[in-house]
């Protein structure tokens, strides 16, 4: 296992997948079903992105933020508020998201 990033548990569950950063609506089209949504924070106009994602990880926000609310609603794990160090994770990196412990681990 690789580096661990500590954030706040915001929605329960565990998921493993590929990290995909969405920084604006331009990135929406390239997002594939089952990928892990990485964002500074999320937006209400990202439509069905949360239905495609298998987990959500954000730099900012706490347990009350938009990403947390929608992840709980969609039943996918979420770790929020990790901070700027999350930028170290590149697109395509395999990660494990533990929404119960609030930890994101690099898998490869």
């Amino acid at each position, binding site marked *: 296992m690789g580096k661990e990033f500590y954030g706040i548990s915001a929605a329960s569950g565990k998921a493993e997948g590929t990290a995909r950063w969405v920084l604006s609506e331009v990135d929406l089209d390239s997002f594939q079903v089952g990928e892990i949504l990485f964002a500074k924070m999320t937006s209400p106009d990202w439509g069905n992105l949360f239905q495609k994602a298998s987990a959500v990880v954000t730099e900012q926000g706490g347990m009350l933020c938009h990403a947390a609310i929608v992840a*709980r609603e969609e039943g996918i794990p979420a770790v929020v508020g990790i901070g700027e160090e999350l930028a170290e994770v590149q697109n395509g990196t395999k990660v494990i998201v533990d929404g119960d412990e609030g930890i994101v681990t690099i898998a490869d």
Partner: protein
Amino acid sequence: MDFKNYNPPALKSLIPVLENVPSDLLPWIAEKHIKYLDDRIHKIVKLTDYLANCDPVERERKEFIAFIENWTKKDNADLLDYTKEYQGRYTSIRNKVESQCETIMKNASIWNSNDTLKNFWKDFAYVNEVDSLFGMFLTSGRWYVNAMLPVVKTLIYTTLPNDLKGNERNETSYLVARRVITPRYTTVPKGYNHSCERRFANSFIPMLQYYDRKLLFLFEILSKYNYFPSMTLNDLVTDIIYNKKEYSNVLMQGIYPPFAWHEFIASQKPRKESLTFEAAKKRLEKNLDENYRQDFETALGLLDVFKEYELNYNNYNYKGKFGLVSKVFYYKTYQRIRDDKKEEFLNAILLDGFYEALEIINNNLI
């Protein structure tokens, strides 16, 4: 105990407001509202910084932060006193916003001269910048404090492991509350025990899930309306103009459906069954130290009250009356601004830059 006395002022029907807005202005209002709502999310860091550094309301901002911070830090805080004081503050600013909405809709004299318009705008900018602070401190965790912190801190205090006592218990619950609600500005001391934070966050998730449904109540209501895939925002606006009766259930609750366009689209897909309050409470209650049962129950009751405030603020400002009336005001002001400054004015005001807009108005009225 009945906590309803602590609730925010109830929202009134939007039907009388809509009757006073010219129908041909409604498509413009809806289009701008949704476009800038989306823009606002994408520019949220810039907007947060703007509000965090807006000089004319610096005193109010610092006082507000100190008010919440002091109550959060207090050992054994009386949450009912805190909520009463919060209610007074919230109601006071809402009354001012309401009074300005009435002036915009009914008092033609503000349009008498450039000076009367500028004077009104000066008050409008101040009141709404302060109101934005209420929004930021209620619905957001991006800032230093959030109005729910004292309540969440008590939930943490009452459910921490019972080997934590006295000052250590108070300080740990304060830090955990700050971490789970407003992590961006929370630094923890060396040796901070993350396990307390994880234990609480994990037990708090079902309770939040329960309240998420309360915040997302529009999904439930809007799912009953007819949506077709090629439907546009303008179609919805037109449908409401001609079939107001059909939408009266939502309008009576103070909500203008086009302002909930994203929710309307999302509402069409099936949703999971929601948790009951008792089921949601279970995981949190498992960690409760029975010595603090009364404080725990009070905090839970007041969490419900603060979620009412969050809903009330969103519905009034973003989905209801203020959204409608303010846009009528912006449109009429826009007509009075020099052509080369018109777009600059709209960009500033539709992103809630009240003082940026005021500056443009002060120097560019025709």
